[in-house]
Each structure stands twice: as C-alpha cells, then as structure tokens.
C-alpha cells in the first residue's frame, strides 16, 4: 500500500472541503478501497475518514419514504425494523452480499461506490484495463470473461458492477443524496451508475469531491418482493446473475412490477420493458417467460458468459414467481 495522509472529518463542511482536494478520497469502512490500495490499483495521497460524521441514522421521511444515512452499515440497514417490514427486497439483497464481517463494516455510501471485481481490473500484472488505465485496452474481451457483462457493455469495457444492494435500490427507485463543493443534489439511482461507453474509468456520475450523505427510498408500495442471487458458491460470492423483483399484486394478477438485474452490466440493469409486460399479467410461467425475454433484448455474450443470457431469463421467472407467492 502506498503511503498517504489520513484525516478524520469532524463535520460535513470540513469533509467536503478536504474531499475536494486533489488525489483525495473519502474513506468509509474501506473494505473495498483498502483492498484496492493493497493491490496498487488505487493510490490516493489523502484519505478523509467520514465514518464519524452524523450520517448513521435511518429515519422516516414526511412523504412516507425512508432515509438511510450514508454511514449506516449494511448489517444495520438489513436488520432495521422499517427496512425488513417495508423494503424486504433491500434487506434480502444486503444479506445476499459479502460476509457478516464485511456487512458489519461496509457502509451504504461505500457499497454504492465499490468497484468491479473484474480480475483484470484488480490485477496490475495485466497492462490492459481501460478502467484502471484509460486507453490501455480491455483484457477481458478476449480473456476469462465468465463473470462479465451481457448488457450495455462497450468494446472498451465489459466489467459488471458487483453490488447487490444497488440492484435492490434501482428496483425500488431510490435516490442518492450527495453534497459537494457546489452544494447538494439528489441523483436517481438510474442515473447514478454509468454504462462504460468510452470512459469506463468512471463508474458513477459523481463529481470529484462529492460525498454521498444518504439514500432515500420512496414510500413502500412494492412489498411483495424477492431477491434471487445465482452464484458459484452457496454464500459469500459475487453474483453471476441476480434479480431484484418487487410486485404490487391484485389477487392473482400483477398490478405493477419493478425488476432490476445484477451481474449483467456496468450498472444495476433496470428491465423497464419487462415491467410493462408484467403489469396485468398472471404468474404463469409462459407469460413471465415472455416478459423475461424482453429483459435480455440486445444481450451479447462473450467467450465464457453466453450462458448468462438464458440464466437471466430463468432467474427473472423464478424471482417474480417467488415474489408473487407462486413458487
């Protein structure tokens, strides 16, 4: 790990002032950042520890929504009574991620900002990684790409976003609140993470110096929910494909649906066309299968990961049936 200076921010203003400096990163729990620093992938000169800022509360909003502070741990968010009662999808997604030790450490803000686990990004022995070194190429395109993207990728990068929490937040139409040198703003989850395009080094639409202060959830209307994570081990592994499915039911029929996929793209992949097709549908496998097919329209497989195109569809069908109570 390179040497750096460490400062602990005493308040939000001071944090943002420090964070705006060059070569400076905010430090949450550090479970991803320190790992990347050990591998030489990230080499910040200054870290601003934000874990003691007053951002650790979960509170109800006047519009019926819920605000989760940026430093609330993944474990605390997953077990909070308001989250388990109103947003079971989020609780399930959080508990599907990482290990208990990591969930005790990892923060809400940090989870959103974790970086891809593409092995070519992580291993500096490989010279080609546009995300790590813009312009150097993409070793995954012709390499081991079993874990990689099938949707929204570019010829510059086929990495996927690793978060489970973010997939649930995308399905739930959450908003990310940030504070930076130019003030505060709120970013819808759908605009928070980026597709790689020609600039895969940028994971999000955050500007340098902007600090996540909270994630806001709209009032809960999709309480029939299931987070299905398909992975190589039963626990403690990143998703091959995951599905966040949340439904409003009217008897046996789906009134409205929210579907987002993980493990398939550079960002949580919201399947809006599938959602439209599911509205008014029953839970029979054939109608769900048609809606699932719409989610992978335009999908492209690479040498090792074409199986994900079929897997994603089957996972959608199972997640929706489970959420609706049919499986």
């Amino acid at each position, binding site marked *: *790990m*390179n*040497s*750096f*200076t*460490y400062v*602990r921010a005493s308040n939000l203003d001071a944090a943002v002032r420090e964070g705006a400096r060059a070569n400076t990163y905010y*430090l949450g*729990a*550090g*479970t991803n950042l*320190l*790992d990347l*620093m*050990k591998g030489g992938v990230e*080499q910040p*000169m200054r*870290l601003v*520890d934000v*874990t*003691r800022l007053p951002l650790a509360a979960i509170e109800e909003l006047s519009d019926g929504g819920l605000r989760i502070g940026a430093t609330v741990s993944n*474990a605390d968010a997953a*077990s909070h009574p308001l989250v388990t009662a109103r947003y079971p999808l989020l609780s399930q997604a959080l508990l599907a991620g*990482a*290990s*208990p*030790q*990591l969930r*005790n*450490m990892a923060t809400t803000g940090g989870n959103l900002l974790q970086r891809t686990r593409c092995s070519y990004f992580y291993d500096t022995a490989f010279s080609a990684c546009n995300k790590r070194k813009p312009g150097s190429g993409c070793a995954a395109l012709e390499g081991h790409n079993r874990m990689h993207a099938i949707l929204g990728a570019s010829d510059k990068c086929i990495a996927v976003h690793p978060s489970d929490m973010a997939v649930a937040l995308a399905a739930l139409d959450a908003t990310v609140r940030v504070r930076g040198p130019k003030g505060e703003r709120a970013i819808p989850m759908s605009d928070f993470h980026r597709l790689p395009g020609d600039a895969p080094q940028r994971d999000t639409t955050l500007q340098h110096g902007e600090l996540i202060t909270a994630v806001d959830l709209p009032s809960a209307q999709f309480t029939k929910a299931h987070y299905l994570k398909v992975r190589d081990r*039963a*626990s*403690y592994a990143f998703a091959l494909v995951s599905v966040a499915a949340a439904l409003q039911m009217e008897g046996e029929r789906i009134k409205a649906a929210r579907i987002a996929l993980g493990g398939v793209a550079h960002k949580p992949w919201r399947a809006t066309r599938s959602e439209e097709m599911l509205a008014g549908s029953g839970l029979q496998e054939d109608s769900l299968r048609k809606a699932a097919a719409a989610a992978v329209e335009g999908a492209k497989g690479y040498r090792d990961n074409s199986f994900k195109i079929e897997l994603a569809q089957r996972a959608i069908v199972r997640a929706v049936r489970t959420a609706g109570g049919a499986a």
Partner: protein
Amino acid sequence: MQSAAAAAAYGTAPYATSQTPLPDAAAAGARGEHIQQVTLSVNGRPYVLAIEPRVTLLDALREYLGLTGTKKGCDRGQCGACTVLVNGRRVNSCLTLALAHADDEVVTVEGLASFGKAAGKPHPVQAAFVEQDAFQCGYCTPGQICSAVGLLAEARAQGFQLTEDVIRERMSGNICRCGAYPNIVAAVKKVGDAG
C-alpha cells in the same frame, strides 16, 4: 515482517532499495512524515502507538502490540482469519486502518477468556471448540471463534434461531482450509442452544 507498512514502523525504509522513482507520498512515508499518534483500546487496555496511516488494525495488533493470536490469512478480506470484535461486532481487521479505531473497543481472541462473567476461564465458545474438536491445524480458529462470538450476539440482538443452516450461512466469512466445518457448526450450535 509481513508487510511493508509493518516494516516501516520498525524504522526500516521499505522503499530504500527500490529501483523505481518514489511517488511523493511514498517518499514522505518512508521518511516517516505521515506518522500519527493513536490510542487503541484492546482487550480493555489502552495502547499508545505512533504509526503510519497505512497500518491496518491487523498489523497494529500483531506487529506493534504483539497480539499474534489474530491471524493473517489472505490479508484481503476473503478468509476471515483476522476477525476481531470492534465494539462487540465482528470485523475483518485486515481491511480497516488502525487509525480509524481511536474511539473503539477492540477485543481479540486473547481478550475473550476474561471477557464477561467467566473471568479467567475460557469463553464458552472457546470451550465448545475444544469439546467439539472444531479445528485441525488451528490457523483459522481465532477468527472462527471471534466470528462465532459476534454471531451469537447478533442472534440475541435480532432474535433469530441458530439452526445449522443459519450457522453455515452466517459463518461463511470464515474459511477453514482443513475442512473442520461440521465440528465448527456443532460447537457454535452447542453454545447457541445453551442460550
């Protein structure tokens, strides 16, 4: 010496023989310019340390405090051998900076025996690991035990039952190369069942 950061702390210059030019901050680190003082509370005892920011809690425990019960396995947050309790919650000490824990209570495997009612006796989880033969080589054991102590507290606080399936899922952050899992599950279950 298991890491450059730990080596630096003992006064050697880890980059002194490097053939590549030093980044400014690394050079400053080698000269000791970033060293900060911190007081860590470990097993109920305060320790005053002067360390570089890049020293992890794990390296601080092992290389500065001599508390080598906490083990370094992967050093990347994947194996769980470095698990300790911070304010009663289990964490990977390899993925957190020592400086970040100035106000925290850290408990390592060395602190479990005198932690709680049975002062001087092995912690119930330690006793159960011995009784159930829940280890072979023992390298992952301190992390397994600290993790189990954390799990038992989580189960009490959140009111979930410690079935074998739940134990397996909630202990999945601790890898055992010897494959002692069945006996580890039995040991944790025994303590959980005893309430």
